[in-house]
């Protein structure tokens, strides 16, 4: 089964952000650090207000601040990473890690995930965890090729993501 590389494009600040691409029926695994098919429904992100849009998880994010760690990778291109704060999302707590190279987001992943409804997900290795509703739903029914509707995740995910971006000046 042929697997295409994951492609990520542009910034995440606009209407369309990250592309994930499959040539086979969507795999449930999320390769470490690769783009997450998150759906972002939150509003007010630019202003950092990150609403929780009625998901029932309106608690404040945990206090851990964004961390950024500049690193360099070959040929003069600056690669930087940042981790966003832990935030509540529909199923638990997560924090987002991003990698930026040459001013573009090249990787979006999870630095932390704690999903109490699924004991398997207590580890930081997200290789085989369907963490987002769409993936979780597709995992339940291997005979579907997509899900329409439902973007519960998004307020928490986008909050952490936006903080990580902000810490890198994006």
């Amino acid at each position, binding site marked *: 089964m*042929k697997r*295409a590389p994951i*492609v990520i*494009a*542009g910034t*995440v*600040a*606009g*209407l*369309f*952000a*990250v*592309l*994930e*691409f*499959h*040539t*086979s*029926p*969507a795999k449930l695994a999320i390769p470490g650090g690769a*783009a*997450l*098919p*998150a*759906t*972002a*429904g*939150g*509003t007010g*992100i*630019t202003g950092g207000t990150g*609403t929780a*849009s*009625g*998901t029932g998880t309106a608690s404040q994010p945990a206090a851990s601040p964004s961390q950024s760690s500049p690193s360099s990778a070959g040929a003069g291109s600056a690669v930087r990473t940042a981790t966003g704060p832990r935030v509540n999302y*529909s199923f638990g707590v997560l924090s987002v890690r991003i990698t930026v190279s040459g001013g573009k987001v090249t990787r979006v992943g999870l630095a932390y995930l704690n999903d109490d*409804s699924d004991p398997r997900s207590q580890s930081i290795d997200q290789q085989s965890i369907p963490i987002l*509703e*769409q993936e*979780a*739903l*597709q995992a*339940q*029914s291997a*005979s*579907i*090729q*997509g*899900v*329409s*509707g*439902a*973007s*519960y995740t998004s307020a928490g995910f*986008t909050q952490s*993501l*936006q903080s990580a971006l902000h810490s890198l000046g994006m």
Partner: protein
Amino acid sequence: MGTVITIDVFPPAAGADDAGADDAWTADLQRRLARARSVLEYADEVFSTWRTDSPVSRLRRGEITAAAAPADMAEVISACTAARQLSDGWFDPWAMPGGFDPTGYVKGWAAQRALAAFDGLAMSGALVNAAGDIASVGAQPSGAPFRIGIADPDNPRRLAEIVQLTGCIATSGTYERGSHLIDPRSGQPAARVASASVIGPDLGLADALATAVAVAGEAGLALVEPLAGYEAFVIGSGGRRLWTSQFPFAPATTGN
């Protein structure tokens, strides 16, 4: 906002006349993916209300007229006008806070334009999924139609229904960006159903109609019923389900 797009391309079925998924095919695919990406980035540059200097933001602030905006602005305005009329005003981008906001149409419009990047590629089918608004062409390699789940608004980890998709599907609901579902008649946030899905050949219009039906409630089904090629399905706040006469629920059997 930061909508994430997923693109799935299904290679031709084994044994088809088309070449299989070899290196030349993959290279062609990558070029088309790049084209799809630039279509989406362009839509973002022009229509994102989160970008302070986008043409749509400048239009909203009255700094430019539509005539001075990129040509696609006129196309989107025209399509939104048609959608407003078809939806009897329940979809009204001009009634949004801050001025004209075509986001409820543009997401679908752009996703479908991105799908067009794959026209001519040897494949059994392809899907572009923009945060639950899905444009499709073709079918699964087996020949079976695509099967798409509709999320259960009351339980995010469950599916409410599965449909057989030809064309596009858009879903709007209270559990999403609730604040964008403004009732044009009152100017207030409103959603009369938990979830509204519209299927049809044009994703921009399906997107607009799903928004309209979500706000209008069950009466919104009557807007969609007479539209050739469009079907709708709603889940009311009590879980009550209603649909137009030919909404393409998948057969109850499992698998393809």
